[in-house]
């Protein structure tokens, strides 16, 4: 019998681009999507599956490879995939899809490199340690929660003085503050992301902070930042939810946005301006403490801190120790370097946090799946971040504003030119606007143009603008800004990182 619209199920052979990947528990499908995939439609919004309603799948798969969880459970860096939803794999992305229970994936669209990493037993999987680490942290979070509850109860019964006694109480010890460190390219950020996603999944609200200026967390590179992650992370983001596309825009977002606080460092490496990095880290840490004090749920969940890649060199160790002290880190996770582990162990042996806890060090193996990220990859990732910041991503097209302003109507600062000595007092000086500034992104600071330079330098970042063009003859700047309105009353800082992005406009 004929069924209207239902019958005639096509039986032609499967399209060659579709393949099914079967994963057993703790297997990973590691994939790489090259950035060259985009041909012409770079800025055109690719319609991705936001809901399970019509027009999903095929449209997106024309341009980007998609992955669909057919059965089982699977996750990307801790964030679970919904079944039967076609996820567009982001371009310029090397990541993995992992399952704890077994899964069948279906990959469609243009070919992307990928292989299945098998393991004979869960014990062989590098993910197992991360998973156990999560559960260990969860136990500590529960302990923090219980301790806080007990303290509160004790004060309620003992004090009887209402608010006065609460105020007098010592602030409860936050949940675990975890710093993840290791050599460059050891999977630090991935571990932080995974731990954050797992915590979020269990209903906790971790504070995630990044003090590695080479890559940004919810911000452009060249910044240090922190945000509370209480909601699901974007698995379609190349940075797995840590990219700028997860920050708010004027419209709705298909993936819940995160609200970071951002400080502008403006350099790639910490050693380029170590004093400033220390100052900004301290600022960030105090923001974190303030959030802990104000928000019980966040405090009990604690902190996950991502750090720059380090060696055992003294300067690097000092840098990590600074972060440990500033953020009152009580758990240090070292990725795959026994040398760094031993060195930190030695230095932290007799340290106690401000809450009087001993500092625990954990050495985790570097996953054999950590992908090589070459210079080109990183450069493209930075450019993609800048582009996403202004123009949005495949899910959300943004329209930045272009405005032409006179040289005299803007206040742009920069750090003084490089010297051979890193420890000379740095600071900000008014920048001379020239054609050299073209294509750079500037940080708009949440300060007043009349503030002293140190205040400006250590102020939180409001956002970024890009200098599209400099007309020296007419003394006018063409500036691309995310938000309309005058820029003149906010100081802008011209850093040296990320490098200019030539093709941002036009």
């Amino acid at each position, binding site marked *: *019998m004929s*069924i209207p*619209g*239902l*019958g005639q*199920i*096509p*039986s032609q*052979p*499967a*399209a060659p681009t579709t393949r*099914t990947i079967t994963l*057993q*528990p*703790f297997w990973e499908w590691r994939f790489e999507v090259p950035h060259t995939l985009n041909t012409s439609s770079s800025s055109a919004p690719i319609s991705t599956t936001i809901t*399970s*309603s*019509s027009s999903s799948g*095929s449209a997106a798969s024309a341009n980007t490879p998609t992955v*669909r969880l*057919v*059965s089982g459970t699977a996750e990307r860096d801790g964030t679970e995939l*919904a*079944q*039967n*939803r076609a996820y567009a794999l982001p371009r310029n992305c090397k990541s993995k899809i992992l399952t*704890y229970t077994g899964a*069948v994936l*279906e990959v469609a669209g243009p070919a992307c490199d990928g292989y299945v990493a098998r393991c004979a037993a*869960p014990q062989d999987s590098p993910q*197992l*340690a991360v998973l*156990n680490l999560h559960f260990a942290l969860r*136990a500590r979070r*529960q*302990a923090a929660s*219980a301790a806080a*509850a007990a303290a509160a109860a004790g004060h309620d019964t003992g004090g009887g003085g209402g608010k006065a006694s609460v105020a007098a109480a010592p602030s409860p010890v936050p949940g675990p503050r975890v710093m993840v460190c290791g050599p460059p390219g050891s999977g630090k950020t991935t571990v932080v992301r995974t731990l954050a996603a797992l915590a979020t*999944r*269990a209903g*906790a609200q971790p504070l995630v902070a990044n003090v590695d200026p080479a890559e940004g967390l919810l911000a452009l590179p060249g910044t240090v930042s922190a945000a*509370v992650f*209480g909601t699901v992370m974007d698995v379609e983001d190349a940075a797995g939810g840590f990219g700028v596309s997860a*920050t*708010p*825009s004027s419209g*709705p977002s298909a*993936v*819940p946005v995160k609200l970071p606080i951002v400080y502008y460092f403006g350099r790639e490496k910490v050693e380029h301006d170590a004093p400033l990095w220390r100052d900004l880290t301290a600022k960030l840490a105090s*923001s974190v403490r303030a959030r802990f004090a*104000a*928000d019980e749920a966040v405090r*009990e969940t604690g902190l996950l801190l991502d750090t720059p890649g380090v060696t055992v060199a003294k300067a690097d160790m000092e840098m990590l120790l600074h972060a440990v002290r500033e953020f009152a880190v009580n758990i240090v996770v070292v990725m795959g370097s026994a040398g760094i582990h031993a060195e930190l162990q030695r230095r932290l042996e007799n340290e106690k946090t401000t809450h009087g806890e001993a500092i625990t060090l*954990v050495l985790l193996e570097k996953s054999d799946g950590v992908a090589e990220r070459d210079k080109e990859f990183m450069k493209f990732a930075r450019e993609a971040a800048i582009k996403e910041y202004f123009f949005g991503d495949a899910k959300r*097209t*943004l329209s930045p504003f272009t405005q032409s302003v006179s040289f005299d109507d803007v206040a742009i600062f920069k750090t003084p030119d490089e010297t051979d000595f890193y420890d000379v007092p740095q600071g900000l000086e008014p920048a001379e606007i020239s054609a050299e500034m073209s294509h750079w992104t500037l940080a708009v600071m949440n300060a007043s143009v009349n503030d002293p330079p140190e205040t400006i330098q250590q102020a939180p970042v409001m*956002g970024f603008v890009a200098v599209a063009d400099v007309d020296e003859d007419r003394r006018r700047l063409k500036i691309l800004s*995310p*938000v*309309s309105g005058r820029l003149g009353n906010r100081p802008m800082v011209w850093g040296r990182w990320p490098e200019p992005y030539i093709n941002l406009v036009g």
Partner: protein
Amino acid sequence: MADNAADVAEDYRQALEDLTVNSRIEIATLTNIARENANHGFAIAEVLQNHIKKAPPTRTLPALYVLDSIVKNVPTPYALYFGPKLYSIFMGAYTKVDNATRRKMEEMLKTWKEPVPGSISTKPVFPIEQVRPIENALMAARNAAFAAHQSSYQGQQQLMRGRQPVPSRDTPTPPTGRPYQPPPQQPLYPGPNGHQPDAAPTPQPYPAHPVSGPPHAIPHRATPQPAPSAGPYPPYPQPASGPVYGAAPQPGISIDKLKDDIQQLIIVEKAEFAKDPLDTSKQTRLKALLDLQTIIQSQDMPQDQLMIIRDRVAELAVNIRPQPPAAVTAAAAGPAALTAPSTAYPGVPYTVTPTPPVVSQQPAPVPPAAAAPPPTAAGKGGVSIDSIFGQGALATLLSVAARKSATPQQRTPTPQHPPPPPPPPALPALGPAAAAAIAAALRSPPPQTSAQPARPVAAAAPPPPPSDPSALLAMLRQSGLIKSDATPTPPPPGRFQSLAGVVAEGGIELKAASLKIFRPELIAQLHEELGPPCTHCGRRFRTDDEGRRKKTAHMDWHFRVHQRTAEAEKRGQHRSWYVDELVSPGPSPTLPPLYR
């Protein structure tokens, strides 16, 4: 007069246009308008029919509910008007909507074969001659989809886009050829108006067996949700829809039924035992069951705890019954079980079909893989709590003891997850490992966690030797099933009590060696125990009250975002400035609704 009818029709059409969501009030209003204008009924019926035909897929279901409401409340004349066209209306809509909606439509269809609930009339809503062709068509469609399981990707894409009928969770007719069964006699449609929003027909699995849980009236919310799960094992009382909906009082859990089940199990076990009297594992298992029976008969237990027992018994039943084939299937390991669903139903959205398809389609509880307790433990002959009451049972009961108010159902093997637990080869030492983990959980807590509410309870329990048959009794006592006078009262649960079971993580030390130990029982804490996932983003929500509240808010958020995205795209949007402090305004840990 003709003008008047045209006006009414036009007004009605406009009113229908405004019906975008499944709103009970709007549907009731539209029903009333239809009632008051029954003299123009034909025009209204015409308009509604056209609207259903033309409405975009997302709005089709509300429109169908209007039809449903009208024919149930104003059967004369509307049932007469719609009846002859029922097939084309229903099938037209069915072809364009997605699978979740289809299931709702199937549920609605079921109710059409029955009298209107609360009505004196015993006539069904629509005559059976008008409903039957639709059922036949759906069945044919399902079979076609099943037959097409090797179809191409294009086929699957179409399936995904909802162009093909896909058998889904509560499919009445498994494609394995079981004959279509008539729905249960009890009307599933509880509401006076029979609207979905507040009185959803329970997405009941077709009870192939009379002992399957009786239909529950589930309070539904306004947001159309993926319906709760149905139990994977038709012949046994599984956590059907009840447990998923959490701690609401379950009229369905009858202690008698539970007793019956246990009795049946005991009979089976006795037979097993008779076959091999020397097998101590069977002996102890039998003893445990007998003990359980005694407990249940002699004690008056609260519903939630009964539910745990019931679930475990159900699992146990599944495991005991097909022992030899189960072992074989388990030995065949994951891949088969894993790939099977995918080949069977290429396009089925499993997220909204909680029943593991293969499981549900076959009368026998085939994959032990899909059941939480790995049959390996039983097969090895070692009896442990885990082997008797399923993986993590002790943990469950302990955690229940720790927080009695929390929902016990989270330990139930949520059928959300077709994939099996790690295949036996991957975890040869599962039983011991679990036992070790439990023991670890029971170890006296580290100093800093001593204030944790759950700990004292856990610590107070002597770690039961896993192979001790009395462990079950101890466990039940521990969980408060037996009101042992020595049971300490658990302190009020803290915030994190609600986040996850308080099991075993205390045993993980921050040492490289400890971090490398596989603790299989923890895996479920990332999945099933967090509740069923949102079909849009995979975020899981518990099935207790708070979880449901959160899920409702979450689904509302999805809905709003979806609604606003289109308009925002037209208007143009831009990146916002960053916040200047990390401290959110106000102490509320929740973000503004839009950011949820």
